[in-house]
Each structure stands twice: as structure tokens, then as C-alpha cells.
């Protein structure tokens, strides 16, 4: 076992080896990701059940293209790209030499660039979301009782579950369209919050990388933020088709 | 202790009343449910005695004697472990099957069952016999025929409630925007309505649904129904066999629904089928405006009396307004019947008059008296006919 003196500063006293420390940190991160997944599962369950109760509503909303597919698709590409750059950042960190030499300088530079690019893409994602949100707010396509989109105003005002008469003169229940936007804002809102947090931690990594704190033995922080970032991407991969595409 | 309990349960089982554990069996379901319960109960007793017996035995027999004590090297035994893993499973499955069978029986109402629409709102139950167009007010009991399947189709107007009749072993949540349902077929002895009067005066006033002042008010649901039927039969000289016997069963709300959750009670009154038919007739052509006891000297209905009946028995206003914490009616008008002015949450004052009151009935949230800002929302009676409103206003005026 290693006595405390000859341990590098980043090696916590209660771990025997760096491998043990890194493996612990990674397992911890996975545990955290798992709880993130279950947190989102609740929102997805809400989506499923609301879609189950009001299928026509969901189809109608998506049929009328109340959400802009182009914007959504662009955002997907943006996020995927940021995911790639993050992966490359991790890769760079994996190869950072232990000793501070020119090679180390070169790789550190690339690491910092990748992190910066990732941040920029994340920023783009948020900007696009902001644009989308402002449109929705302008149209009154808002969650719950703030919903005031003309087409269904009548229904919302007296909380009755009104019906629409279909082509065959049959009664289609398209009650409570505001629920779609409740689900939409809840899901994208929570996801957006995660993106925002992501931006924060990636900038923090950037500063640490700048100070040259990382090397191929101590890069767990980069790796774990990477994992987090990919999870955010993962969630969006499902959000996008569910909210924008499926009819 | 348990030995004692089961001795009691035996002793009580002989007498026709409820047992130590369970209330009287008054529905076909009750018998099935109880047999399931007693199966589980006896299994549990046996296991409890075995386990705790063994525990105490070991604890005493192998009590530490000295520090030199030696203990056995027992790390376990697959045989024994398998036995106590598998053997109980059979009993558990048996329990599930018994419970499941009874449950299936309890959720599939017979096709020919009498349907009653139950509406729960904070904090009373009101009933409607859709096939007969009969409304039964919140203050009255639901009346059902003995030995015929009755199906309650239930819905809530505000929050979740739950309809529970212990004597029938039935319970079901009453959810807003959605029908839930339970059914029962009553059994058991019927007694004279008077029989149920004896216990009732012991109830807290609020539970009896009496006005907060009326000390000697009793809950005479059984009696009322019996008399109602007999008198109607006499008037229209319908053949009626013997005294009208009733069975009265307590109804609870078991899903927490706010302040007066524990006061959201009701009664089921059981009649012999032929008496029930008379009751139906009587109800169908009953109108408080025709009721003799409400007629004034001039032979016209005395609106204040009618209003009192409507407020207490049909619309159940007194469920809340009878209690001191809620808006009191006797302060609305003075002796001369002149409307009093009251301060609203909006700040301005409003003088109580017909318009104000009819609005407050049809759309209670329109004007709220400041003093009662947070006693909870009154559910709206938008459907109340004009003449009923008039009658109730008259009743208010008559209150001093």
C-alpha cells in the first residue's frame, strides 16, 4: 500500500491506488447517470400516459406542425456534434502525458479546444431552444392554464372536455390540448436545464485543463463530465422524435 | 394475547352480531370475504405461535450460563431452508386464490342489478335513481331493496373520495371525471326503524348532520323511511304486509378529502322488496310543494317550510351551513325580512336579496363573504330550478 507522502495531491488518502480511485469515480458517475435516467423516465411515463389518454390531441398537434421540425432537427445535429467533440476531448485527456513537455502542451491545447467547441455547440442548442420557446409563448402555446392558442380557446376557458366532429360526423375526443404543451415544456425544460448545467461544468473543466491539472492518470473528471454530456444527448435522441416527429 | 383474541372471536361468533374482528355480515359478499379473512387469520395465528414459541423457547433454554459456554457450529441447512421457503408459498397461493375468487365476484355486478348514481362532493354523498328519476338529498339515506343486486355508479365532483360500507365489506374510491363502481346484495335481519334510533343520539352532533345547536336531534333515517312508506301506503291504500322493517348500515368516506372528511357520512337503508317498490312510487310522485305538512293555512304550499325541506333533505345545504364554521343563514335577513349588508372579499358590501342569493347558489365563487374567505369552496347548484331558489330564500327569511 502507498504511504500518504509519496502520493500525488489528487490521490485521496483513503484509496490505495489511482486505479481504485478512478474506477470508484466512474462507478459513482454511472450510478448518478442511472438516477438521471430514472428521473427522466417519470417524464416519459407522463408522455406515454397522456398520449394514451388523448391520442387524437397528440396527433392533431403534431399534424398541425405546431412544433417546427427543421428547428428540432437542427438542434439534434448540433447536440450530436457536441457529443462527438466531447468524446474527442475525453480521448485527448486519456492521452495526456504525465510529464509537462511539449507533447503534453500540444495535447492539452487540443483538449481545451474540444471542450470549448462543445460549449459553443451547447450554447447554440440553447439559443435555438430559446427561439422556439419565444414562438410558442407568442402563439400562446403554453402549458396548462396559460394555454391560450385560439383554435381551442373555447375548450380551455370552460374546462369542458369538448369534442371535434370528424369527417364522418363522428365525435372525436380532442380534449385538453394544453396537456401536450405541458408535457412538451416539462420535458424540454428539464432537458434544457441539464444542458445549461453541462455548459457550466464543461467551462470548469476548461479552466482546470488550462491549469494543467489533468494527465492520463488523473482525468476522471473529464471522463465523467463526458458521460454526463452523452446522457443529455441520449435523452434528446428520444425527446426529438417523440415530441416533433411522431404523428 | 392472541390466544385470548381468538377465544373472544369464537365467543362472539355464536351471537348473530358482528364478531370480535368484523362487523355484522349484511351482504352476500360479506360471507365470502370473511371466510377468506378467517383462513388467513388462522394461518397467521398458527405461524405466530410456532415462530414466537420457538423464539422464546430458544431464548430461555439457551440463555447464557457462563463465559465458558460453547455454541453449536450451525451454518444452516438447505433442507430446512427449502422447507420454510416452499411450504408457506402454498398457503400464500391459496390465500391469493381465495381472495381473487371473492374479488372477481365483487367486481362483476349481475346484469339485472338496480343502478344508483352516487355523487360525492366535499363533504356529502347524494344519490340519483336514473331509471326512476328520483333524487335523494345529501341529508337522506340511500334506500335499497333486500336480496336484490344494487349497483352504485359513482363519480366525484371535486377531489377523490371513497365509498365504504363496512357491513357489506365493499369499498371503492370515487374519482373525479370518471365512473367507479361497486355492487352489493344485502342480506340479514331487518328490524323496526325504531331499533336504530336507540344508538343514534350517542353520535356527535356533526356526525348526525344536525344543526349545531339542536342537542336532541336524532338521526332517524331508518324511522323516517319506514314512516314515509307506511303513510304513503295508507293514503293510497296500497296493500302492505305488516310493519315496515328496515336495516340501517353506516357509510364512511375513507379517502382523505379535506376538513370534514370525518363528517362525510351517509346511511344505507334496506327495505323488503315490496316495501321498496312502495317507496319508489312514493318518491316518484312526491313533491314538497304538494306535501300536506308543508301546506299553509290558505292551502297553498308554505314556501319557507318547503325551502327548509329542500335545504335540509334535498340539496343538503345544512351539511355545511348547519355548522357554525360556515356562513350562517339566520344573519342574512332581519325580523322584518330586510336583507342585511355583508362585506365581500372584493372589499365592497352587498345587501342580501333574491338576486344575490340565487347568484351565490348558482355560482358560489362570484361573491365571497370576507369572513368566510377560506372555509373551502361551495360546489355550485347551477341546475337548481327557480321555484326551489325562491323557496330557500323564503326559508332564510323565516330563520331568526
Amino acid at each position, binding site marked *: 500500500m502507498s504511504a500518504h507522502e509519496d502520493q500525488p495531491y489528487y490521490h485521496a488518502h483513503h484509496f490505495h491506488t489511482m486505479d481504485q480511485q478512478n474506477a470508484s469515480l466512474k462507478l459513482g458517475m454511472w450510478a448518478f447517470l442511472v438516477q438521471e435516467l430514472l428521473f427522466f423516465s417519470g417524464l416519459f*411515463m407522463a408522455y406515454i400516459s397522456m398520449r394514451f389518454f388523448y391520442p387524437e390531441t397528440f396527433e392533431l398537434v403534431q399534424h398541425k406542425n405546431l412544433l417546427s421540425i427543421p428547428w428540432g432537427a437542427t438542434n439534434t445535429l448540433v447536440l450530436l456534434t457536441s457529443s462527438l467533440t466531447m468524446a474527442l476531448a475525453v480521448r485527448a485527456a486519456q492521452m495526456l502525458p504525465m510529464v509537462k513537455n511539449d507533447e503534453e502542451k500540444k495535447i492539452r491545447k487540443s483538449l481545451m479546444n474540444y471542450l470549448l467547441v462543445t460549449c459553443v455547440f451547447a450554447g447554440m442548442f440553447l439559443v435555438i431552444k430559446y427561439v422556439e420557446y419565444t414562438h410558442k409563448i407568442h402563439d400562446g402555446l403554453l402549458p396548462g392554464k396559460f394555454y391560450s392558442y385560439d383554435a381551442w380557446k373555447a375548450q380551455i376557458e370552460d374546462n369542458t372536455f369538448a369534442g371535434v*366532429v370528424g369527417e364522418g360526423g363522428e365525435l372525436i375526443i380532442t380534449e385538453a390540448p394544453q396537456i401536450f404543451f405541458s408535457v412538451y415544456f416539462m420535458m424540454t425544460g428539464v432537458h434544457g436545464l441539464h444542458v445549461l448545467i453541462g455548459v457550466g461544468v464543461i467551462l470548469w473543466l476548461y479552466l482546470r485543463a488550462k491549469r494543467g491539472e489533468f494527465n492520463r492518470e488523473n482525468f476522471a473528471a473529464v471522463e465523467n463530465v463526458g458521460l454526463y454530456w452523452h446522457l443529455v444527448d441520449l435523452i434528446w435522441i428520444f425527446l426529438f422524435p417523440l415530441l416533433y416527429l411522431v404523428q | 394475547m392472541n390466544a385470548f383474541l381468538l377465544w373472544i372471536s369464537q365467543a362472539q361468533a355464536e351471537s348473530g352480531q358482528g364478531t370480535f374482528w368484523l362487523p355484522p355480515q349484511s351482504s352476500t359478499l360479506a360471507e365470502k370475504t370473511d371466510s377468506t379473512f378467517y383462513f388467513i387469520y388462522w394461518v397467521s395465528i398458527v405461524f405466530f405461535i410456532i415462530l414466537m414459541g420457538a423464539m422464546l423457547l430458544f431464548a430461555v433454554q439457551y440463555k447464557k450460563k457462563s463465559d465458558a459456554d460453547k455454541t453449536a457450529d450451525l451454518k444452516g441447512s438447505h433442507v430446512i431452508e427449502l422447507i420454510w421457503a416452499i411450504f408457506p408459498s402454498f398457503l400464500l397461493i391459496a390465500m391469493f386464490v381465495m381472495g381473487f375468487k371473492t374479488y372477481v365476484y365483487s367486481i362483476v355486478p349481475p346484469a339485472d342489478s338496480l343502478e344508483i348514481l352516487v355523487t360525492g362532493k366535499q363533504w356529502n354523498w347524494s344519490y340519483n335513481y336514473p331509471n326512476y328519476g328520483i333524487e335523494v338529498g345529501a341529508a337522506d339515506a340511500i334506500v335499497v331493496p333486500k336480496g336484490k343486486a344494487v349497483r352504485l355508479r359513482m363519480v366525484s365532483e371535486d377531489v377523490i373520495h371513497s365509498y365504504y360500507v363496512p357491513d357489506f365489506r365493499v369499498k371503492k374510491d370515487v374519482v373525479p371525471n370518471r365512473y367507479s363502481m361497486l355492487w352489493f346484495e344485502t342480506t340479514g335481519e331487518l328490524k323496526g326503524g325504531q331499533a336504530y334510533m336507540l344508538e343514534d343520539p350517542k353520535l356527535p352532533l356533526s356526525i348526525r348532520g344536525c344543526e349545531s345547536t339542536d342537542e336532541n336531534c336524532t338521526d332517524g333515517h331508518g324511522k323516517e323511511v319506514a314512516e314515509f312508506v307506511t303513510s304513503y301506503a295508507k293514503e293510497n291504500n296500497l296493500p302492505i304486509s305488516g310493519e315496515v322493517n328496515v336495516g340501517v348500515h353506516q357509510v364512511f368516506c375513507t379517502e382523505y378529502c379535506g376538513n370534514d372528511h370525518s363528517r362525510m357520512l351517509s346511511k344505507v337503508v334496506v327495505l323488503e322488496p315490496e316495501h321498496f317498490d312502495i317507496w319508489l312510487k312514493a318518491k316518484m310522485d312526491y313533491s314538497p310543494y304538494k306535501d300536506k305538512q308543508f301546506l299553509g293555512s290558505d292551502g297553498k304550499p308554505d314556501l319557507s317550510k318547503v325551502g327548509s325541506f329542500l335545504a335540509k333533505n334535498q340539496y343538503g345545504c345544512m351539511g355545511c351551513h348547519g355548522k357554525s364554521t360556515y356562513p350562517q343563514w339566520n344573519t342574512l335577513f332581519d325580523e322584518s325580512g330586510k336583507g342585511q349588508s355583508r362585506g365581500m372579499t372584493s372589499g365592497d358590501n352587498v345587501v342580501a336579496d333574491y338576486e344575490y342569493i340565487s347568484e351565490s347558489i348558482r355560482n358560489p365563487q362570484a361573491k365571497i363573504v370576507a369572513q368566510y374567505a377560506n372555509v373551502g369552496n361551495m360546489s355550485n347548484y347551477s341546475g337548481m330550478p327557480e321555484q326551489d331558489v325562491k323557496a330557500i330564500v323564503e326559508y332564510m327569511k323565516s330563520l331568526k
Partner: protein
Amino acid sequence: MSSHDHAEHHVTPLKVYFGVYFALLFLTIVTVGVSYLGLPPTLSIIVAMVVASIKAFLVSAWFMHLAHDTKFNVLFFVASLWFIAVFFIFTTSDLASRGRVMKAADTFEYRLDKASKAPAVK
């Protein structure tokens, strides 16, 4: 001690990363394209979810290095998916089978009652 948890640094070659990336782009285009075909709801959901799952697999396996990670991390990740599945399946099984026994207790019927009373909007 817990040596089975020792994860050796596996540096993924660049071409794998880019391969995965372009696969993801391609699949995105596919799923968007499909959405314009106007398939019937159920079918379009199935297609979209299948595509999304493939993308998710690519991301978790290579971007998140599960392909080279310790068995337990993989197991843990999969286990969480299993519990989510439990949550979804049991809850939807309730939603889907409501009011089967007692027709009159059917959620939909009550809504029809209300809807027929409510003003119909075009």
C-alpha cells in the same frame, strides 16, 4: 482486492468516433425523412423508437465507452433500463386494461357523456 473493477484505459481510434458520428447523422436524417411519409401513428412511433434506440446504442457503446467498460457498469446501466421498463410496463398495463370488467366504469364512456354535453368545436 476489487481488481475485477480495474478498467484499463482503452483509447478508441478516431475513425470509430467519426464512424459513429456519421451513423448518427444518417439515422437522424432517416427518422426525420420517415416522419414526412405520414405513416399511421402506431407504425411511425415504432419506426421512430427503433431508430432512436439504435442511436442510443451507438452513443452508449462507443461515446460512453460501455463497449470497453467493466462488466458491472454495463450491467448497472442495463439494470436501470430494466427498472424503467418495469415502471412503464406495469403502469401502462393498468391504463390499457381499465374498465374491461365493468363496462360502465369505463373512463372513456364518462368522457363521452361530458363531451356530448360540451360545445363541439370545428
